[in-house]
């Protein structure tokens, strides 16, 4: 982190010395500058951007200071309820600019023609330096340069408080500094606007020292909550355009069926409905929503598809992954922390554990099914109105589908139901279908998926299994740890409607691809037990299940979901650590502390130990029982490092052996993100993730047969209800000496599963090494 001690002109890159700033004339300020054709013709030093985009190299595309002292910020990040863009981003900019939180009156987010940077709705704080922070830091230096010139006072003699620059007995407000000026401040930017990671602001502008923060650390409210709660917010679901038609899509009968013949609309019942067929995509459009729903149902019944069976069925999933999937095509990943020589240590172990851990497919399961409005204009310009985690990437995907360039596609971002990573690579599901149908009818079209479409035609969080071997020495210390993670490709960013329609898309996940859509299974779970002398972590990847066999090239499509990849790796690791502690006759928290080296990791373990009133002893508890109709109680712990944040949790459960029902009674979670930007928002994010994690641990499993997904609604895919929630305690550790702010949302969802599984072992003496821990599975385990 920059300390502010570096010399101006040196730190800010070549475009921001005072002299050059004055020479180029600077626009900190007014209006926003659309990129014109001149820019497109190319200055190779600038990043690729498009017509209908903001110029990301202009600071005013990110931060505008207005003559009335108000400030506007823009970000390509779409808020999905984290609130970061409306709270933390404003706080960060306020501190970098030395203005009050309230001075930042406007946040423009997501729209591809009104925001500069793109990227997905994840990692908002960018390990402490999100783009918006750097943009503010550059802007601050430029404001100081301006003030220095205006006041005739050297820059290093100036100070700023509440947007007033003072020095040499004189002062001036930001608003007065920028009044009546058209200034242009250029900043260095790199990256690919329509990729999953978007653009990154480069360079190292001086940043506000942590000790001088006055806005960061306070619990400001999220401004969008008020308008949502009062029904004053326009959601994507609310967008209506003149002449709009409602549509429903008749998806194929199976994940590999091709169209034999599309049904015809019964015009006596649905006189205004129309069937659109593109490849294997069948859509029904009508002027009213109810007619579209009913007509689509009638057309669906009359549509004929080929049969297909190419999936193993969920009962045989692990057998398929273990015995039939090809793990040889993708190179094996190796963990960065691998050290020593595990082989001899395992061979000469005093005590040894060999175990396999399994996770099911899970759904993102947004509470509202995906939907989008598309308006394909006669000149070929496409407008999409949607709730999307990466509008710029969606823009690229739709352009590819239509054989055009992204400058013809504008994505308008609105609030919508959270979908937890599903569209961070660009599409959530309905956007491409809306475009195809709008193009066909020449009118705006609103595609709304029904609940069953969302359960069966969206992507899922990938299933996985891991093989663990670990060795303990005579003293009960871990002498070696070896884990092999197996997971099919976890991110398929192809728009499904385009795939079904046979239109151009990026390829299905393959070995040679970018980092997220490759079949390579990287090590995602940072190792935190540095005192283990011999360590091997390996990742093995393969293709998505059924995709190659499907005539549609569909199969079980996967997509990153909160804590992607890391959930699949942390669950086996942490449950194995608890088992190792039990094998050593040691307490599960103390055993972790004894093998960890990082102070922050140990701090989190101590924090949950204290906050949960943990009784230090080995597991299982002395009176553990695996039979009977009386609930038995147990507790377990888990630990994770993600995006610069350390997390630990303790779950205290009651399980009734006779029924296999687990109730989580108390859940204690501790978080050290470094600097806590907004305690209230962080607490709400942590609580939400923690409760979602209880669902992942106990209920959530995508069921499928040989043809397709059989999960179809909230009965067949239960998620936690209010009755399932424990007494929850959140411990936030503000740790300013870290000097940065880590991620604070996802990760919470991943902690519960290994802690609950360890608690089950503590209570019953039996270990369940698969997720979810549904009552029937627990009951079966306890009978063995």
């Amino acid at each position, binding site marked *: 982190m920059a300390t502010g001690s570096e010399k101006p002109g040196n730190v800010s890159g070549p475009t921001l010395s005072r002299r050059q700033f004055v020479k180029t004339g600077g626009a900190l300020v007014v209006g926003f500058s659309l990129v014109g054709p001149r820019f497109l013709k190319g200055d190779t030093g600038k990043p690729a951007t498009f017509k209908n985009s903001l110029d990301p190299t202009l600071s005013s595309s990110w931060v505008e200071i207005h003559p009335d002292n108000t400030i506007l910020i823009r970000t390509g990040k779409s808020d999905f309820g984290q609130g970061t863009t409306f709270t933390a981003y404003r706080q960060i900019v306020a501190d970098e600019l030395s203005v009050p939180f309230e001075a930042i009156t406007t946040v423009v987010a997501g729209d591809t023609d009104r925001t500069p940077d793109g990227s997905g709705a994840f990692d908002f704080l960018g390990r402490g330096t999100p783009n918006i922070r750097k943009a503010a830091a550059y802007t601050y230096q430029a404001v100081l340069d301006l003030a220095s010139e205006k006041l005739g006072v050297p820059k290093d003699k100036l100070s700023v408080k509440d947007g007033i620059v003072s020095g040499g007995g004189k002062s001036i407000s930001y608003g007065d500094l920028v009044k009546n000026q058209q200034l242009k401040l250029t900043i260095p930017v790199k990256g690919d606007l329509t990729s999953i990671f978007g653009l990154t602001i480069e360079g190292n502008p001086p940043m506000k020292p942590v000790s001088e923060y006055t806005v960061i650390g306070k619990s400001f409210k999220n401004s969008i909550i008020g308008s949502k709660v009062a029904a004053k917010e326009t959601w994507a679901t609310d967008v209506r355009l003149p002449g709009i038609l409602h549509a429903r899509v008749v998806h194929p009968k199976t994940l590999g069926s091709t169209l034999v013949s599309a049904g015809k609309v019964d015009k006596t019942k649905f006189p205004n409905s129309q069937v659109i067929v593109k490849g294997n995509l069948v859509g029904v459009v009508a002027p009213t929503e109810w007619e579209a729903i009913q007509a689509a149902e009638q057309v669906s019944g009359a549509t004929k598809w080929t049969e297909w069976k190419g999936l193993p069925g969920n009962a045989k999933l692990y057998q398929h992954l273990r015995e039939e999937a090809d793990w040889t095509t993708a190179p094996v990943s190796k963990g960065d922390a691998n050290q020593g020589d595990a082989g001899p240590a395992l061979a000469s172990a005093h005590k040894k554990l060999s175990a396999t851990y399994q996770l099911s497919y899970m759904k993102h399961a*947004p509470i509202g099914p995906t939907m989008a409005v598309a308006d394909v204009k006669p000149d070929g310009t496409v407008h999409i109105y949607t709730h999307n985690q990466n509008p710029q990437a969606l823009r690229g995907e739709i352009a590819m589908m239509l054989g055009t360039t992204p400058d013809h596609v504008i994505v308008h971002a609105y609030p919508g*139901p959270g979908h937890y990573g599903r569209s961070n690579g660009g599409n959530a599901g309905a956007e491409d279908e809306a475009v195809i149908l709008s193009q066909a009818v020449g009118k705006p079209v609103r595609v709304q998926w029904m609940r069953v479409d969302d359960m069966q035609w969206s992507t899922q969080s990938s299933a996985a299994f891991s093989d663990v071997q670990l060795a303990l020495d005579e003293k009960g210390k871990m002498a070696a740890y070896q884990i092999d993670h197996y997971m099919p490709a976890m991110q398929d960013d192809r728009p499904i409607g385009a795939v079904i329609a046979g239109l151009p898309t990026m390829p299905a996940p393959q070995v040679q691809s970018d980092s997220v859509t490759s079949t390579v299974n990287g090590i995602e779970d940072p190792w935190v037990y540095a005192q283990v002398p011999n360590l091997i972590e390996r990742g093995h990847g393969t293709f998505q299940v059924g995709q190659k066999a499907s005539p549609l090239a569909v199969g079980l499509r996967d997509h990153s979901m909160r804590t992607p990849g890391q959930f699949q790796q942390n669950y086996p690791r942490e449950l194995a650590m608890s088992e190792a502690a039990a094998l050593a006759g040691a307490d599960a928290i103390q055993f972790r502390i004894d093998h960890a080296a990082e102070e922050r990791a140990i701090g989190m373990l101590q924090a949950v130990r204290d906050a949960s009133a943990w009784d230090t002893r080995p597991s299982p508890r002395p009176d553990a029982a695996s039979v009977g109709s009386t609930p038995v109680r147990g507790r377990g712990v888990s630990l994770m490092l993600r995006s610069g944040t350390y997390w630990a949790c303790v779950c205290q459960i009651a399980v009734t052996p006779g029924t296999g029902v687990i109730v989580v009674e108390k859940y204690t979670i501790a978080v050290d993100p470094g600097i806590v930007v907004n305690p209230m928002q962080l607490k709400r994010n942590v609580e939400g993730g923690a409760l979602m994690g209880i*669902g992942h641990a106990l209920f959530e499993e995508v069921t499928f047969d040989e043809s397709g997904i059989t999960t179809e609604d909230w009965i067949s895919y239960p998620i936690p209800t209010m009755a399932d929630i424990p007494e929850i305690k959140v411990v936030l550790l503000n740790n300013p000496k870290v000097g940065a702010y880590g991620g604070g949302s996802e990760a919470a969802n991943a902690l519960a599963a290994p802690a609950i599984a360890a608690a089950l072992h503590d209570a019953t003496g039996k270990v369940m090494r698969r997720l979810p821990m549904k009552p029937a599975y627990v009951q079966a385990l306890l009978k063995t």
Partner: protein
Amino acid sequence: MVTLNVNGVRREVQAPDDTPLLYVLRNDLQLIGPQFGCGLAQCGACAVLVEGKEVRSCVTPVASVAGQEITTLEGLPARWAKQKGLSADEAKSTLHPVQQAWIEEQTPQCGFCQNGMMIKATELLESNPSPTLAQIKEAFTTSGVSPNLCRCGTYVAIIDAVKHAATIMAKGR
């Protein structure tokens, strides 16, 4: 033609009798508080009050509620103003205590389910001004045709907000 009484206003709509109330509210009357979550009465995102009872508008034929008193999220402030006899001026600037509490407790994550949660909370607090934790959990899980579901896991924040709303309502404004 169906005649509805929505948020204290008589509204006539041209829609087939079997049209689910949700689509009439959203598409014909531009009342966008209720959201489409499942169309199966399994989640509660579409909830409205009909004669003070929480009803799932996604499966309620519009003709079946003709003439009955329907309140959507948009109508909660006026409902509270009427119950408390607030002046028109006061009413304009007042949110329902449930809405106030949802803001003060910062309850939403994505917020898509919160329409139904606030409708359910209003139903609960109108009949039970100071519910216990067990009664709150019962209201949101077993009192209706299905539990009110939140995927973001805001249940703790909802409980905090229901309790807070009860306090505001006890004070009378």
